[in-house]
């Protein structure tokens, strides 16, 4: 045991402490850069300034995804300290998600079953899936690197929070280009896309951030 401790002590070097606010800042800058790039690539919907900004459901999808992304990122970054559990944050995310669905249902008000398939527009929906998964990659990668550098003691839950944050941010960015404001379409496709991204993070990040 003495030899073992001696090896650890001889390996000792001054360390730079982990700084959660710096991680949050780096993540925020990365996300804003992604949004700027998305808009610079002319991906915004043509009627963004005219129609979208006056449509309540546009603000609903933007506010919901922004809120969930913020909650997810805060939960993931905080839980990189081993003494902090991500569970309370995940509960808040679940509450925000339920609120998002309830507000969406109230905003909708249309229950005509006949045009449900038309409203779901599966071609655009599949594109939504692809783009949200793709757009979630930068934030997911950054959070994965933070996880590896940190010491998450609840790896699976932290990975889930990171995945939700990355997916919700991707949905936020995609909202600017998505021509759909129908709550049914958003409720189904955005939720599916976010669930897919979060599942990828939940599977990959714990393995990557093993310590």
């Amino acid at each position, binding site marked *: 045991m003495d030899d073992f401790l001696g090896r*650890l002590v001889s390996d000792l070097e001054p360390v730079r*402490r982990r700084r959660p606010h710096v991680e949050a800042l780096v993540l925020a800058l990365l996300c804003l850069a992604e949004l700027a790039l998305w808009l610079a690539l002319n991906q915004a919907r043509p009627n963004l300034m005219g129609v979208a900004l006056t449509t309540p459901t546009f603000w609903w999808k933007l506010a919901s995804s922004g809120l969930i992304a913020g909650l997810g990122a805060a939960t993931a970054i905080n839980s990189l300290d081993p003494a902090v559990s991500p569970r309370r944050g995940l509960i808040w995310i679940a509450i925000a998600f339920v609120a998002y669905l309830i507000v969406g249902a109230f905003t909708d008000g249309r229950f005509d079953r006949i045009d449900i398939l038309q409203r779901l527009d599966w071609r655009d929906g599949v594109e939504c899936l692809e783009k949200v998964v793709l757009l979630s990659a930068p934030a997911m990668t950054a959070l994965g690197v933070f996880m590896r550098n940190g010491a998450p003691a609840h790896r699976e839950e932290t990975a889930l929070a990171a995945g939700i944050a990355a997916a919700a941010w991707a949905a936020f960015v995609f909202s600017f280009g998505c021509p759909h404001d129908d709550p049914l379409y958003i409720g189904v496709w955005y939720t599916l896309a976010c669930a897919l991204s979060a599942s990828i993070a939940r599977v990959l990040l714990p393995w990557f951030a093993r310590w």
Partner: protein
Amino acid sequence: MVGSDWRGMMIAAQAGNGGAYRRLLEEVGVWLRRYYRRRLPPSMVDDAAQDALIAIHQKRHTYDPARPFEPWLAAIARYKWIDRLRALKRAPSEALSLDIEVEDHGSAVVSATVLDALLRGLKPTQSAVIRLVKIQGYSIEEAAQHTGQSISLVKVNIHRGLARLAKELEKGDHADG
């Protein structure tokens, strides 16, 4: 839990003070062995304590001096404990040799008591086969004969029981020093 200023020693260690770090590791090592003696079979205690010390060494930059040191240490100890339990789940079940040296009865009794309390939370069919195979060293076939379960059911019950146990431990607060 703490006899001396572990927080101060860790802050000094983060700045590169080897003397303070050595003292911290020695004292924390004693605490860790006591912690694992209550939760693991005696043969696993030293390895688990060393694992936790390596984790403390590698992750010392994640300690925030604005927070108390003990919860940080306890969280790492618990994390490594759950890792050990998962490894136990993956380990093949082998019959115990009759030549195994028996020592440290006190800690074994405490471990057995803690394990017994944990196993009581499982279904009887699961806890029975885990006791037989993982603790008493019976083979899968012997456990099947003993309990009247089929061999595949014994394997399934061990797998599910240990998975549930690990899940319960992650949820629960069995880790208090």
